[in-house]
């Protein structure tokens, strides 16, 4: 069974390196898909919101990783 666990871990590792980045991105995708459209946001603005949220999540996560790495040195 060990090889199945290893294969699964490799597969998940393709998409998830830092768990918080993946979870936050998925939450934002869910908000863009399920919460924002009923609020009456125009479809074109939805694209901008999708990109802006992802950009902020990526930059914040990288900055947090930089701070953590520096603090652990």
């Amino acid at each position, binding site marked *: 069974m060990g090889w199945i666990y290893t294969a699964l871990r490799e597969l998940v590792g393709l998409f998830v390196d830092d768990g918080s980045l993946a979870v936050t991105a998925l939450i934002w995708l869910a908000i863009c898909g399920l919460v924002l459209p009923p609020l009456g946001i125009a479809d074109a603005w939805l694209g901008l919101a999708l990109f802006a949220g992802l950009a902020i999540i*990526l930059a914040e996560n990288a900055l947090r990783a930089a701070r953590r790495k520096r603090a652990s040195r």
Partner: protein
Amino acid sequence: MIDWVHAGPSVAAAFLASLVEFIEALTVVLAVGVVRGWRPALLGTAFGLAVLFLLVIVLGPALARIPLDVVQLAVGTLLLLFGLRWLRKAILRAAGIIALHDEEAAFAAETTLLRQAGGGGSEWDWVAIGAAFKIVMLEGIEVVFIVIAIGAAGGLLVPAGAGAIAALLVVVLLGIVLHRPLARIPENALKFAVGVLLCAFGAFWVGEGIGVAWPAADWSILALIAGFLAVALVSVLLCRGRARMLPAAQ
């Protein structure tokens, strides 16, 4: 008829992403060949490629039966997670927060492991065949996923596949000519570019899946590429500044 100008970003994304994966696979296959012999190295590679080919033959047609918006949303989400992971790591490497990937060091580590491993006395060197098979499968599955993710949602599987095959040919040719790991290729710059492309494609397909009306349709991918590139470059600068500003832990 494929519009190759329209398919350009897909071909470039698949080529660059596959190039990075094939370079990593080549390093291990070369190590197997140098230490344990070329027969098991090539056999393991051939087995790996055959299994990958079977996977594509089985999974490819199955994908065509799933409704397009479901494919766009599912593939886009996976592509986005994949791209964000690559881009985050490339940002941290470019900022000097984590070490750059070194093919020479990876080659040295792999050759040491292969020299220490036993089991080379019989006709079939299963340790060597297994090592080559495993790396070709691992990196190859990533390539297959990238090609499907970039190509399937937009009906551009052929151009994306052509980009991946071109990358394979380039790496195999360089491997045959140089007979050593491709250490001079700026791997992090490639990963940075690929991360940007994957994020842009992922965001675009997720948007299509949730009903975003992208201005200028597919051309919005270029705007998304520019947007993610700008965010990544600013993040590198901010991370460098942050690393300098904060006091180190004692």
